[in-house]
């Protein structure tokens, strides 16, 4: 469940950064259309790919339930962090990307 959580959190952060308003607020730079596409694609890919570790660890029925749960919780966490600790929200996303391969190794 940990890997799925890390991937979902990073995925939602990417999707969040692909919107003009949040990109400006968080990174203080203008969003180019190329980067927007990349972030959007990467975000969706991460969210969907997170099904894989969840199902691998717990089987289809339980895995899908866990995926839904971490999907909701990671989004909730991100949205609650953004207004209060925007830097922490970004750092966490970076950390989850970095920690994902480690968690993947532990899973396999």
């Amino acid at each position: 469940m940990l890997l799925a959580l890390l991937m979902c959190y990073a995925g939602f952060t990417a999707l969040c950064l692909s919107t003009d308003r949040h990109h400006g607020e968080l990174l203080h730079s203008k969003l180019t259309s190329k980067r927007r596409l990349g972030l959007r694609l990467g975000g969706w890919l991460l969210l969907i790919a997170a099904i894989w570790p969840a199902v691998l660890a717990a089987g289809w029925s339980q895995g899908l339930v866990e995926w839904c749960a971490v999907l909701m919780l990671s989004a909730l966490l991100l949205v609650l962090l953004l207004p209060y600790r925007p830097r922490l929200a970004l750092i966490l996303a970076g950390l989850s990307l970095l920690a994902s391969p480690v968690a993947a190794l532990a899973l396999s």
Partner: protein
Amino acid sequence: MKEGFRQAMAWLHTWAGLIFGWLLFAIFLTGTLAYFKDEITHWMQPEVQAHPLDDGRSLAVAQSYLQQQAPTAASWFISLPTSRDPGLSVMWQDKAEPGKRGTFIQKILDPVSGQPVQARDSKGGEFFYRFHFQLQMPYPWGRWLSTIAAMVMFVALITGIITHKKIFKDFFTFRPRKGQRSWLDGHNAVGVLVLPFHLMITYSSLVIFMSMVMPAPIMASYGDDSRAFFKELFPNTDNPPALGQPCQLLPLLPMYQQARQQWAGGHVGRVAVNNPGDVNASVNVFRAGSDSVVHDFGNTVSFNGTTGELLRVSGEPSLPAVVGGSFYGLHMGHFAGPVLRWLYFICGLAGTAMIGTGLVIWLGKRQLKHAKSAVMPFELRLVEVLNIASMSGLMIAIAAFFWANRLLPVSFAARSDWEVQAFFVAWGLSLLHAMLRRGRRGWVEQLSIGALLFVAIPLLNAMTTTQHLGVSLMNGDWAMAGFDLTCLASGVFLAWAAWKMQRRTASQPKAERARGLTLKQEAG
């Protein structure tokens, strides 16, 4: 035309949400607590000690106890201890005249010593579980009312989605410290982000309720009442009747092991023995509900109790049973391990918060119009009183329930009923208090009382039992420790809410009125 439709939906959302909001808040909060019903029961019956699990020992202990106490009973039921609920529960039904039902007697045994535990009489977490769909009303009325509430909730969810214009654009948006705007943001955020849970829980409750209000097989709700057990026996009426020849029952452990082999290592929840002292004894081994997401109501392996011969393995459930069982399983979350259970709990709290913020927004919007006049119109005052009593009042009532559990003497007559009385008396008093105090003061005072009551619960536990935090943490009794810590956290949260409220009240007259933002909000 399109705008007209959306306005109609917004109207429906507003009024359906208001009328049922208070009830739904209570249903959601108590239902959320019911995810930890076994843990709550464990806390409320501290006499039942937690031991490392050993099903073989538990079964042997239960069998020898029942052999001594009820050798001629019509049937025995053994519920094995779990990491959530450490008590070994045994129950037997006396023989009765044909056509009558024998009385049930239940005991909780210590799974190591085999002696009955004199646990204090308490409804435990079962109270919250029962309340969230029966609402403490006589038989079908509470279930009907909660069914209607669930339908209204479903309507409110759908109309809410239609009304919310910018689901994707505002997906990540939460702007705190902006008064009414923040409440709406918060309402949208917990609504949209946890929407899959809200839809699942509401829809599945309708599926479950439909079978509850119509007498259908899924009626058997897991619980400690006799009816649930009786229903679980239903598929086993093809077990042979007693012949009247006494015969020794075989040890249950080999049958338990054989059943687990049948399920490829699945877990056993409960063992039922029919005609235990008879040559025609039969043993039904029920699979634990925690094994799969899809709840299977009759997953059993049956044995002949005197020869040990395997009689029957229940087949694969039919497709409708799988669909119904998945909704039931998803709603109940029996299958969830500790982490997923906490996620369920958080989702439940998010649902509660969504309802609470909705109620606050309704009032906040209308209060703005009357900000200048000294007296609020009666209907707004009514909503305010009900808001306070249904939210902070319910918190106080829950805390009072726990306090009563520790303060009422163990030998008190009808003790578990008095715990429930304490819950409703505290709730009633909070309603009275909300009527007497002016809005904001009412909020601050009730939130503070709730905070005090919850923060003090670990202390109260330490003073009245031997299971205080130090002990439970050392023993790895996570259910007990988790309860104390959660109460502490809830108390801190309520104190924070009270403090925010208090600060707003103090700073309001000058600074905020100057900005024209009077009476922005009420806390939930």
